[in-house]
């Protein structure tokens, strides 16, 4: 069975390239208001592993349809020979400049492609379309028409009537705004053009649905990772001995907030990449931290020791030493040695902490004071992050590759509409994420749980 190929043809500037960009999810397709932007047929195969399920071909628009039809009529024999006349037309003119666009768009059709004829339902039908539709009819290939209203769909009815005379299947689809389910549905319609194409197109549609689910899950994972990174982020700055903390407070807060925003931006880019947008211009208000009281001054010691550890270690070694004294007195001291040793050792540990902080080994300080900003404590923060990420995802997933403007993400967090049950469950998962440290098995489980919860929220059927 040959792989189904569909040539997207029509008048210039009626959305052929937009249709291809949308269905092929390819932002590299040139879309411009000037006619003749597409100069060569370009193939967009849908590959799954190493198998091609179908191919879309973007073609230049008809430029001299009347003259081409004129030539064909002059060379016409009977109705049965019309496809051969079209083939002869292409054979005779393909090397010339005059009918380059016509040859380029007719060639895939002559090679066996189905015809997808695209018109604009926002502008009226005119007689200049007749010649091109007639040529397409002459090819004898299975065909359908898509009315793509670029603006107000004022003329859809007149188009439906006109196209009905040339095409068996006519569909209306705003290709710039086409939802994912509409795109998949359209693919299934393509499969109806010829019986043997149907299995391939059905399979392609199923795979795309599956692929979409994976994209949602991947996006959910990226969001969960971003939330985790934000919740655990801490900015540290060492203080010189006697240096006032307030000197660095503002800078540290800015640094902290800057890093959080960067984490969010990176996650946004990754989600866009998942949906096949590599260089999307995005306009999104930066998020504001809700709790700004995250500054703390603390002592630090080498090896991650804490004062508590030193006291305990001191106490234990003191007690052991004391215990040896007790043992040598055959217990007559009633463990006084252990008790005294433990107390003295603990006290030494307590007082040595500061001394240790001032100590330098191989020019490396063994401790000191530092400022810590973070981690964020606000219970609202993960909800805000998720709300923003979800809104962005909704826009990215709902966008088509034919849209070329800036992605404008609004301010709304859209989380309040969620049922209480879902909010509670999310809150529990956020807490779990906070409690586990990154890199641990527990954290991985917490991430997986949150990813699942977010993936459910990304389903288009969920309330916004």
């Amino acid at each position, binding site marked *: 069975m040959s792989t189904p190929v569909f040539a997207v043809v029509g008048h210039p500037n009626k959305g052929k390239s937009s249709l291809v960009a949308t269905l092929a999810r390819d932002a590299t397709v040139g879309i411009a208001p000037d006619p003749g932007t597409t100069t060569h047929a370009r193939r967009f195969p849908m590959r799954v592993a190493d198998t091609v399920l179908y191919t879309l071909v973007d073609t230049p628009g008809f430029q001299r349809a009347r*003259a081409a039809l004129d030539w064909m009529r002059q060379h016409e024999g009977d109705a049965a020979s019309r496809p051969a006349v079209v083939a002869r037309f292409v054979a005779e003119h393909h090397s010339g400049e005059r009918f380059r666009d016509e040859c380029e768009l007719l060639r895939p059709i002559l090679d066996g492609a189905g015809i997808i004829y695209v018109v604009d339902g926002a502008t009226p039908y005119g007689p200049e379309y007749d010649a091109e539709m007639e040529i397409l009819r002459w090819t004898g290939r299975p065909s359908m028409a898509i009315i793509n209203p670029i603006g107000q769909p004022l003329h859809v009815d007149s188009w439906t009537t006109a196209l009905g005379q040339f095409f068996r299947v006519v569909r209306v689809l705003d290709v710039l705004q086409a939802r994912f389910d509409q795109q998949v549905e359209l693919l299934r319609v393509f499969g109806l053009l010829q019986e043997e194409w149907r299995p391939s197109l059905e399979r392609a549609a199923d795979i795309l649905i599956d692929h979409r689910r994976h994209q949602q899950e991947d996006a959910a994972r990226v969001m969960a990772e971003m939330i985790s990174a934000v919740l655990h982020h801490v900015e540290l700055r060492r203080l010189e001995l006697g240096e006032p903390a307030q000197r660095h407070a503002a800078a540290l807060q800015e640094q902290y907030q800057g890093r959080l925003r960067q984490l969010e931006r990176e996650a946004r880019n990754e989600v866009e990449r998942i949906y096949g947008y590599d260089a999307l211009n995005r306009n999104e208000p930066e998020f504001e931290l809700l709790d700004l009281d995250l500054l703390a001054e603390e002592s630090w010691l080498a090896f991650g020791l804490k004062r508590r550890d030193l006291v305990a270690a001191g106490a234990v070694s003191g007690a052991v030493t004391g215990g040896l004294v007790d043992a040598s007195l055959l217990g007559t001291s009633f463990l006084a040695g252990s008790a005294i040793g433990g107390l003295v050792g603990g006290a030494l540990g307590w007082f040595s902490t500061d001394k240790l902080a001032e100590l330098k080994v191989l020019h490396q300080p063994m401790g000191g004071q530092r400022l810590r900003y973070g981690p964020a404590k606000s219970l609202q923060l993960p909800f805000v992050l998720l709300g923003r990420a979800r809104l962005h995802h909704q826009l990215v997933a709902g966008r088509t590759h034919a849209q070329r403007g800036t992605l404008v993400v609004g301010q709304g967090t859209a989380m309040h509409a969620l049922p209480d049950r879902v909010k509670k469950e999310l809150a529990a998962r956020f807490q779990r994420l906070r409690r586990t440290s990154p890199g641990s098995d527990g954290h991985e489980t917490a991430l997986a749980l949150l990813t699942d919860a977010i993936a459910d929220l990304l389903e288009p059927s969920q309330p916004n």
Partner: protein
Amino acid sequence: VHGQAHLLSEQRNEQRKRSLYCHSAGGANHAAMPRPARSAPRLAELAALMAAVDWDERQSASTQTALDREVAPQLQASGHHPVVAGRIWLAAVAQRSREVQETQQRVDHMLGWTQAGMVILGLLLGWLTTFGVFYYDGSSRVNVVVALAVLVVIPAVLLLPLLLAALPERIVSALPAAAPLAAVMRALSPGRLAPWLLRWGPQDWRETWKGWQGRLAAHRTLYGPVQKWTLLRWSQLFALAYQTAALLTVILLVVFTDLAFGWSTTLTTGDPERDAQRVHRATSLLALPWTAIVPDAAPSPELITESRYYRAAPRSLSSAEASRLGGWWRFVVLALAVYGWLPRLLTLTLAHARLRTSARAAWVATPRLTAVLRRIRLASVQTVSAEQEQRAEAFTLHPFSITNDLTAIDAQPIVINWSAVPLADDVLQQHLRPRQILAAGGAATMEADQAVVARLGADRSEAEEIVIVVKAWEPPLLEFVDFVRSVRQALGRNRSILVLPVAVNAAGQPQAASESQTGVWQRKLTQLGDPWLRVAAFPREAAS
């Protein structure tokens, strides 16, 4: 929540398994290929993976895409298992990057060398220590207490850091003093000998080692457990070698020399009988694990009483006595095996298993690997074109303004309605006051167009200007450009041609074309380079 989430995850996993996406075309083709193992990644692979991720980051998008497309089918066949998928990707990267390939080889060699070194050191130390402890020249006896203390008790105490390390971090941090103790023990671990051993390795090994350690340090939170368990596995390997050497040395000494065992201690009750009973209780307790199988291997009370000796009252042994005192050997050998060797075998197995687990966890959590695998998985379904878009060269417009003053039009132009603009003749009459209205394009034949052109050529009237009314919403086609060229040819130079893109409302009245529509016409027609050809916007006043 946890249970529900697991159920959800399982449902998703089930869906994944059933999914067409994972078992789609290509699976059969790759079924014959050797499938990389799911086993935990080796450290060398982990090191290579880190290098591969760095390599990937340095590549251009096109190189990444080419690699992704190549790897995607195999990944699908693998069912996207993170370790298998990572291995497949790593193998593909290693084919392209010498650095990644060499990293893996060097780390592999390095680790092999280190392990061999640790084993040799352990064997040497075990042999030397045992030889020292069991030194017997016939003048004195081998003190069982010392032998057990050195070969069993001390190593058993040294198990503590391992146990501390094996505890989850949460518990260690909660136990007072456990963290510094663990840090000190780690600092004293024989595993620390490994870097020292590497000093004797070739220069490139040392560099690879440094680079790897640098990467580990940079992501300490993720790779901390790997580092810890690598170190602990080395120390357990060392310890097992030590215990093996001890055990073998004792057995060899027993086989090839005569040993007379005895016991001696200062901690005494003063009553030899009670002392012997105490020792017997202790030895019986120690021998519990094996008395059922080897009853002889527990020293009898008589042997214990007989084998006590005092350094203060040395006496030489008769040959019969010496032979009886040798009866301790079974106990000593089995104690070494059960309390020295076996625990180390277990701890080595534990360290090995934990290293594998942590290596697997680190593999999965390797920064950017998830993103790379995600990228490849998404690349397994491709809808975009592999061909470059060929675009028409953009035309830069010469800056000239669009006329919107219809008074600039001649009094009585000839108007051509191109392609049936839906404006009635009387409307055109009202707005443009033409001398004549002709029709071309659209449903008209090419001959009809030629006839219009011929008529314009023949017309030598006063009407200087030709106004072509076109649909503003349609783009200018080459067909129209051809027509304008023919008109120009027929008219000759100097006569003005005005193209008037016009919009039409539902009532059939002319509307001003949008700027972008007029711009499209203007850009196209400017390309003709005809100085007497203008594009005019339909004035808004006229439209109203």
